[in-house]
């Protein structure tokens, strides 16, 4: 915990037992021991701080804080106290106090390298870039080591990145940073690779690409050795930004000769080629095209280049690379886009794809590769393509059931790929019910036959024939959605469960089962399925929605609460975790990573899922835990809920959900599009807004209902109340507006792909009338509040209004209730199940305010 190496110091020896108690989690003993020690040695400040740590950890925050401040005001300069206070402040989530601590320490001990560097890191933790810049410089002046100088430079870059005013960044911070580095370059003091990286970063941000290029190509660039191809990658980046297409082309060409499988360079090769063609570029002299070597400027050259690469692969003894063959399809695609007739020189896409299948059809990724270029085939060729592919699959003799089976896993993979391709091409979709059922029989037969190849598979491995099983499930889902026949869904569940019994680690089976059970409203198996996926940490943000979307809405409050908690724990640790590694990045000179880490932290903080679980968690707590009004008010207070505050980043919401986590071989027009993503985010945001406003309204009601004792006598309190009811009024009108937006959104009736994002709860909440019911209940309580202020005598109008509102609310509630009635198994609308309890709370609420 602290520096404990030097046992010779008597204070260290005295403090040691306290450290040990704290380390072992024995906080009470630590406090006792500290007290004992303090009786004898009043001035042993560190003991006080250690006691404070014990107090903090036993929940006595206030006591801990005042004790710590006693020591802090003395401005300690001993290591033990400083380190203990740092730990304490960190646990209190008050990192800004650490800066104060070391500011005082460096003032008293201005030559201490250690304290200066602690001060720098303390500023880094709270993101005080300007002060970091100064602290870095002060440190360098005390101890002239290069890293300290560059900490200061980096802090200037961070000021530029965080500056609201881009002009300030470009005219002040970055130029200053540049000059600081230039000074070191001139004095030939550049030592480390990290320093060159930082120089590059600065030049790049300044848009000084020419200078950046010169630097990377020059002697300083020789230091860039850690990362593979570091110089080449940086040059390429600059060529692209400067639109130096000849250099870009020549470098891509060179890199592809070295590794004909590196896809990014095919893209830059083609990009640059077409730019050069558009500009009718020709080399200034025949000998040297550009610094990077020969440049290719014609389609003929590109065709030859790609064909040569394929021939190279054809000749190879070892396994061929896919790159050149994919590049050939990519080139056809691009030529076609440009309306260039030369594509024929590369051959017929159909034949090329068959050739690709011939070479790579036994690889599981063959489908993923070919999928990208299927649009090169005209629709009338689709069936022909499938049949020709079929000819390339070696199957055994047709048996009694009418099917021939593959003899080994390679043949199986080929057959599978043909099935996948025909699904992607839409050839499965056009089958009628009869046809689909036949297809299912065939796929099932292949599935079962294929299991024999995986008999020796460990339970952590997948079965070779698993994808057949998944496809059977997909076809069943097609049938279910087309015909509404629920029997199909039961069959589908059965086949997936069977699949899981042979392949217990198959995540795709689990994900699909999970989705189907949720859609059915059968939540029981979902928790186990989800936990067997072992989703952790960042996965809470990316796939947690699969669970949290349904747990609450299906009335599984305990499970919901638990899943919200898992997610929340992850998000809350993020802030602390990331600052620690921002500091590490300074220490190791990974300057490029610093803005990346900060962006990452922001991305998590602005996560849609984070805002959702935060809101739902509090709503759920209010609904389930607050039985009597007093505890409701307490709950609101304990949550730190402030109705006036809105902490959701509505304008910068990040949708971190992984919406393609479920495999799909659906045709392109059924795939998830960017538009789907946008609509889903929009819908979820509006629903979140409804929920968050409801929460804030409930909170403000709870706080309002509870100033009754002194309401009429105390003037200030009355003002407080009226301020709160105006908050209430504002929130209510916001809710009203949001509900209007919500109605517009649900009118669109957006359908997402089945395997894409689930629809939000918005539509059912609106159509069930629950949203409006809640809104009127909340409105009613506001009117009641008015009545209370006006007094009973002068408010007959208001009273009639209230009376009517009550009546209509009761009607609404009854309607809602009647919709909730029915057998669960018959009920299609799972959302309704949650309504009664929700409304009870509200009714209850209205009553409390009435009193």
């Amino acid at each position, binding site marked *: 915990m602290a520096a404990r190496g030097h046992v010779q110091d008597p204070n260290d020896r005295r403090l040691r037992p306290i450290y040990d108690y704290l380390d072992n989690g024995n906080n009470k003993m630590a406090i006792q021991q500290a007290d004992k020690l303090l009786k004898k040695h009043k001035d042993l400040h560190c003991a006080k701080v250690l006691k404070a740590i014990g107090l903090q950890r036993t929940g006595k925050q206030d006591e801990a804080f005042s004790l710590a401040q006693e020591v802090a005001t003395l401005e300690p300069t001993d290591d033990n106290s400083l380190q203990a206070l740092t730990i304490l402040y960190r646990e209190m989530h008050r990192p800004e106090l650490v800066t104060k601590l070391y500011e005082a320490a460096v003032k008293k001990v201005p030559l201490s390298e250690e304290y200066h560097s602690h001060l720098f890191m303390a500023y880094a933790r709270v993101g005080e870039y300007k002060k970091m810049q100064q602290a870095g410089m002060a440190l360098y002046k005390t101890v002239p080591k290069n890293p300290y100088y560059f900490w200061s430079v980096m802090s200037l870059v961070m000021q530029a990145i965080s500056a609201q005013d881009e002009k300030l960044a470009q005219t002040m911070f970055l130029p200053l940073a540049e000059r600081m580095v230039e000074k070191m370059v001139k004095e030939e003091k550049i030592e480390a690779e990290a320093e060159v990286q930082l120089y590059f970063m600065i030049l790049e941000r300044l848009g000084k690409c020419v200078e950046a290029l010169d630097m990377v190509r020059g002697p300083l660039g020789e230091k860039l*050795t*850690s*990362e*593979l191809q570091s110089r080449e990658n940086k040059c390429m980046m600059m060529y692209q930004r400067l639109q130096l297409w000849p250099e870009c082309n020549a470098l891509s060409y060179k890199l592809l000769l070295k590794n004909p*499988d*590196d*896809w*990014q360079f*095919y893209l830059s090769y083609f990009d640059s080629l077409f730019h050069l063609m558009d500009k009718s570029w020709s080399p200034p002299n025949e000998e040297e095209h550009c610094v990077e070597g020969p440049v290719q400027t014609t389609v003929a050259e590109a065709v030859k280049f790609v064909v040569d690469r394929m021939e190279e692969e054809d000749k190879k003894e070892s*396994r061929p*690379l*896919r*790159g050149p063959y*994919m*590049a050939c399809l*990519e080139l056809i695609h691009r030529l076609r886009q440009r309306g260039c007739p030369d594509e024929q020189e590369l051959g017929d896409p159909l034949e090329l794809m068959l050739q690709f299948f011939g070479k790579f059809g036994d*690889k*599981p*990724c063959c489908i*993923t*590769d070919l*999928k*990208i270029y299927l649009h090169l085939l005209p629709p009338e060729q689709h069936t022909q393509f499938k049949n020709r592919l079929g000819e390339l699959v070696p199957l055994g003799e047709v048996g009694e059931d009418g099917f021939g089976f593959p003899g080994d896993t390679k043949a199986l993979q080929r057959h599978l790929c043909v099935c996948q391709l025909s699904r992607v091409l839409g050839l499965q979709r056009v089958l009628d019910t009869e046809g689909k059922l036949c297809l299912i029989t065939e796929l099932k037969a292949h599935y079962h036959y294929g299991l024999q190849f995986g008999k020796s598979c*460990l339970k*952590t*491995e*997948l079965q070779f024939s698993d994808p057949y099983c998944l496809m059977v499930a997909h076809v069943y889902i097609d049938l279910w959605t087309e015909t509404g026949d629920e029997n199909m869904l039961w069959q589908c569940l059965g086949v997936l469960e069977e699949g899981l019994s042979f392949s217990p*680690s198959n*995540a795709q089976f689990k994900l699909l089962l999970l989705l189907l059970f949720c859609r059915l409203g059968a939540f029981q198996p979902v928790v186990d399925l989800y936990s067997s*996926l*072992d*989703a*952790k*940490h*960042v*996965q809470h*943000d*990316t*796939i947690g929605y699969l669970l949290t979307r349904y747990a609450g809405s299906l009335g599984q409050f305990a499970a919901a609460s638990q899943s919200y908690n898992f997610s929340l724990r992850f998000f809350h*640790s*993020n802030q602390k*975790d*990331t600052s*620690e*590694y921002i500091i*590490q*990045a300074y*220490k*190791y000179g*990974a300057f*490029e*990573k610093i803005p*990346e*880490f900060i*962006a*990452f932290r922001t*991305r998590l903080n602005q996560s849609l899922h984070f805002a959702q679980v935060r809101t739902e968690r509090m709503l759920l707590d209010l609904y389930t835990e607050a039985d009597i009004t007093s505890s409701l008010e307490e709950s609101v207070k304990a949550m730190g809920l402030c109705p006036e505050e809105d902490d959701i980043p509505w304008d910068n919401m990040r949708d*971190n959900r*992984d919406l393609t*986590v479920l495999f799909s071989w659906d045709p392109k027009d059924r795939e998830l599009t960017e538009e789907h993503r946008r609509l889903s985010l929009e819908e979820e945001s509006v629903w979140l807004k409804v929920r968050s406003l409801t929460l804030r309204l409930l909170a403000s009601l709870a706080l309002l209902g509870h100033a009754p004792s002194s309401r009429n006598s105390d003037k200030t309190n009355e003002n407080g109340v009226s301020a709160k009811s105006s908050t209430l009024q504002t929130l209510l009108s916001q809710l009203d507006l949001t509900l209007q937006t919500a109605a517009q959104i649900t009118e669109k009736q957006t359908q997402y792909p089945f395997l894409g994002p689930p629809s939000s709860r918005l539509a059912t909440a609106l159509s069930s009338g629950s949203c409006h019911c809640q809104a009127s209940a909340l409105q009613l309580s506001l009117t009641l509040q008015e009545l209370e202020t006006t007094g009973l005598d002068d408010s007959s109008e208001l009273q009639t209004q209230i009376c009517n509102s009550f009546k209509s609310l009761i009607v609404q509630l009854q309607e809602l209730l009647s919709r909730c009635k029915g057998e669960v198994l018959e009920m299609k609308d799972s959302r309704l199940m949650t309504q009664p309890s929700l409304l009870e709370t509200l009714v209850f609420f209205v009553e409390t305010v009435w009193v």
Partner: protein
Amino acid sequence: MTTLRAFTCDDLFKFNNINLDPLTETYGIPFYLQYLAHWPEYFIVSEAPGGELMGYIMGKAEGSVAREEWHGHVTALSVAPEFRRLGLAAKLMEMLEEISERKGGFFVDLFVRVSNQVAVNMYKQLGYSVYRTVIEYYSASNGEPDEDAYDMRKALSRDTERKSIIPIPHPVRPEDIE
């Protein structure tokens, strides 16, 4: 074919198809950030033309140079099921070895579950051999016994006599490995 590039934080939001594998651990954010902050060059991801992540390798350099123990270490290597059988893991290993060569490492090492035959055989094919067995290195959760690990090594060119890979006959305990 694949695009090989540095792993970035944003990739953490996209690696589910790789990490939903039962033998691939999803670590807490600090673990990834630590590697990105300290050894960014050792964290490489490969991306398919369609944008899917295919696999990644995460490693570090550690050990004392004086004791000839300075080496590259493979912390995690995983390839998504649909991108297996392409030699991608071998390619990523080759890159990690190249980086370790440049840093002047004596060898590259890694830990693998004794039961993970597929991986053990692959590493053998890539020139690795079992240096020692580490007892109960992998702690199991659901009541099953803890599992042993092989510590596998491959000598780099700096270790001309290949001293670093001479096997240790007796198994060691996790607390005894430095």
